[in-house]
């Protein structure tokens, strides 16, 4: 089972990284979402995996899943929604201002940041 879990985390990470390295805001946001899943799963797994254990305390049971990573991941999921919402708004504002959703102003040449007036408006948000 641990093989499956680990490879799934790996696949989500790899997909996330690939999408984050792309050129358009929407794709990058998707990539960040994938990375979020991967990170949350990883944190969750730091309590070690457990199957068919009770979720709440009951008499006569000694073993439970590790509650601490669960609590941390729970808030992480909610917070990551808030952060996704902020970058969505940033990306959207930049697109609306520049009519272009590329994240890199000019990928090839260093210092091109200063010489792209149309793109510069993207900073307004």
């Amino acid at each position, binding site marked *: 089972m641990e*093989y499956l879990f680990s490879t799934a985390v790996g696949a989500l990470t790899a997909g996330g990284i690939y*999408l984050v390295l792309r050129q358009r805001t929407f794709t990058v946001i*998707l990539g960040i979402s994938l990375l979020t899943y991967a990170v*949350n799963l990883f944190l969750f797994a730091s309590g070690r995996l457990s199957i068919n254990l009770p979720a709440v305390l009951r008499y006569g049971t000694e073993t439970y899943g*590790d509650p601490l990573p669960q609590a941390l991941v729970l808030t992480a999921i909610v917070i990551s929604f808030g952060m996704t*919402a902020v970058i*969505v708004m940033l990306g959207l504002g930049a697109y609306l201002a520049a009519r272009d959703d590329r994240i890199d102003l000019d990928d090839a040449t260093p210092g091109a940041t200063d010489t792209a007036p149309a793109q510069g408006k993207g900073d307004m948000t």
Partner: protein
Amino acid sequence: MPLILIAILPFLGALLPGLMIRAGRTVCAWTTATVTAAALIGLLVHAPAVLAGEVITYRLDWLPQLGLNANFMLDGLGLLFAGLILGIGLLIIIYARFYLSREDPMGTFYTYLLLFQGAMVGIVLSDNVLLMLVFWELTSLSSFLLIGYWKHLPEGRQGARMALAVTGMGGLALIGGMLILGQIAGSYDLSVILTQKDAVQASPLYLPALILILLGAFTKSAQFPFHFWLPHAMAAPTPVSAYLHSATMVKAGLFLMARLWPVLAGTPEWFYIVATTGLVTMVLGALIALFKDDLKALLAFSTVSHLGLITMLLGFGTPFAAVAAVFHIINHATFKAALFMTAGIIDHETQTRDIKRLGGLRHLMPVTFVIGTLAALSMAGIPLLNGFLSKEMMLEEAERTIWSGTPWLVPALATFGALLSAAYSFRFVIHTFMGPERHDYPARPHDPGFGLWGAPALLVVLVVVIGILPAAVAGGLVAAASGAVIGGDLPYYSLKIWHGITPALYMSIIALAGGAVLLALHRPLDRLWQATPRPEAKVIFDALMAGVVWLARAITAGVHNGSMARSGAVFAVTIVVAGYAAWAGGAQAPATRDLLPLAAVPLAGWFALMLVTLCLVFWHHQRLVALILIGVIGLIVSVGFVYFSAPDLALTQATVEVVTVILLLLMLNFIPKTTPFESSAGRRLRDGAIAVAVGLGAAALTFALQITDFAQPSISAYHLANSKTGGGGTNVVNVILVDFRGFDTFGEITVLGIAALVIFALTEAVLASPVGKWLANRPLNPDKAGDAHPLMMVVATRVMMPIALVVGTYIFLRGHNEPGGGFIAGLIVAIALVMQYMASGFDWAAARQRFPYHGIIAAGVLIAALTGVGSWFAGRPFLTSSFGYFEIWPIEEFELATAMAFDVGVFLCVVGAVMLALESLARLARRSGVRPSPHAMDVDPSRDVTAGGQ
């Protein structure tokens, strides 16, 4: 007064000048002087005990685990330096009142000065080296402010930057050295370190520690080859120069060497590094000083030279030399501060400091003449003045010193240095005050008021008194301070003018006579000096800095050229490489856990997840498809949480997934629906390789984590054991959120609320900009659905609304004991509300929304905070929860916990934040000219029937 108060008083007092300047310049100066005087009195109260040999300490544990304690110690050395810092500081404050012009912001000046003073006092009173380092860095920063005080002068700014760069770099080296020293000695407390001489000097790390510490001391005390910053710091106002370069900043390095003398001194390494550096600095500084025409530059290089002298004495490593060093520190501070103030007076009254434009001032400025002359002659080493006494001791010790088997080298160079020193001192007097009166002074010179000459006059009185009655006036202080430096019995010495006919006397006579001859030959020598090519330190420094800046720019531009993809790639690769290095470099714990058995259902889920992730990567150009696939992945993850015994996470993940997809749909409403193919094949290959490498790393890390047990016992057991008894709930996850880690949760909901407000603010900014007008009038999408608010959907959501609210309430109420809670309930309610917006339209829903979402967020945070504050009234710490069981007929016994009120806050904050974020984005879609429809549905049969009936 406790020692900590003496050190902190100037910092506290630094708040005052900025306020008191409104009451006038004099009041401001007196306030500042009062602060310093209070600290000085507090210090002097301890003086009798310290002079009697006691060591006063003050202990305050701060971070004892790190060895970082606010321990203060006052011994003879500390008393000497703290007395100099506060005493001369007091004189400088009075002097500055009359020196600064009306245009200079005096409140700022005094604030900087007090900050600096506090930092210096802190250095000399610290008993903990880490604490000392903090103060050390503070002196670098505050001296930067002081040197650059005249912000309008480019020299001032450059000088300040140079001083900061040099002393700051030295400070970094010092941190390294002190940490090594603390490691060797096993403590960061100076009182312990000072007893560990043998352990330190036997350690293989002695030399690295020594070099690093000396780098710090040499840069601060302007020793060759770091001497160049000091003359450039002369661009500061003269009170600053007088303070920093006579008694304080540059003496900090000497203090450090003296303080650590018992541990570090006495080895050949110490002798050759410290004594040689001091000797070279002494001769070089004096040589340059002789040919400087600017009075302050002359004094600056003479300071460099005298610092070299003291460094050399400390470097000799003998107890007698240490006594001479301590004595010269006192003498140099008195005559040099007086000289700087004299130079300031001359500059102030004649509007020039160029020695070639001065001369003949003795009749025009008689008081200044007397003060300046006595101080300068003391610097030259004329008998009956204090400079003579310590210089004799220096020569006596130099005469005994053998450098690498050569007995004549040190005495000859020391005499030569003294000769040069005499020459420039004479030059200061003769070329400024003697000679015929001139008629081309830039301003008509005359003596200033008592305010300006009072302070240097007092110092000159000390110069003379110590010079005539050394043992009576300074004997006790010298003995106490030397005793602290040596850390053992004092050697035989006597502070008196006449020691008989000794070699030192001959050397002294040679120096004075030679100095006079050299001054007579000054004109031809000066021409020769000006014609000789010399390396210019500032040019070298600037070139060096330019090189460093270029290198930093080149690296930054290579890694971080503004392309996010590139930084991302660099970041990812770095992490993989660092992770691999950590894995390859460390030992792996053996596998201690059995693997869970494989089953068919999770295998199917795994296949689905892999497939969907692959599809997402390949089809991400179709944005709607990609969004659906993300949703699928989220659902699989939720199911995974259920499978791995985490129902709370599953509920959260599923509900968050819904709102995230709605969020991204809202974004997709505005942006293009497809991503163009624009990356080259090579680029895709590269990114793919990076992605696979990171993915493999993540998989390996996750797996490695799974097969081993916890390295330390987990605190989860505590939570499990106390959840029911202490927190009153059986759902441990929820109890952790609202009780054990309630403060974390409080922070998290606050962050969530802030994120929502940020989104709201960004939306406002977009709508207020020209983009907002364009948005409102943009062309309609031709593919628009005919029925934006279909009947079926409106009816269905209306029916579902109360059900969803009941479910939300239920999930909330059971949260403490069953999976659920404020987070999940908040998300469910938010989804129910969003559905109304989606089905019935923004305007229809917004018109029925009574409470602004900002208010709901605020209410949530407030309720959570008040719940926490409530426990104060019960005399418990913030957010301590309590619970009890109640019975109200006809309901069964139920539990009420204060944590539930906290959970209400969480609930409200989540609802408000999610709704505010989505509503803000939705507002972007509103168009101008479209009146809000009073009807929820575009097509409404009941309305049509009514219309048809008319």
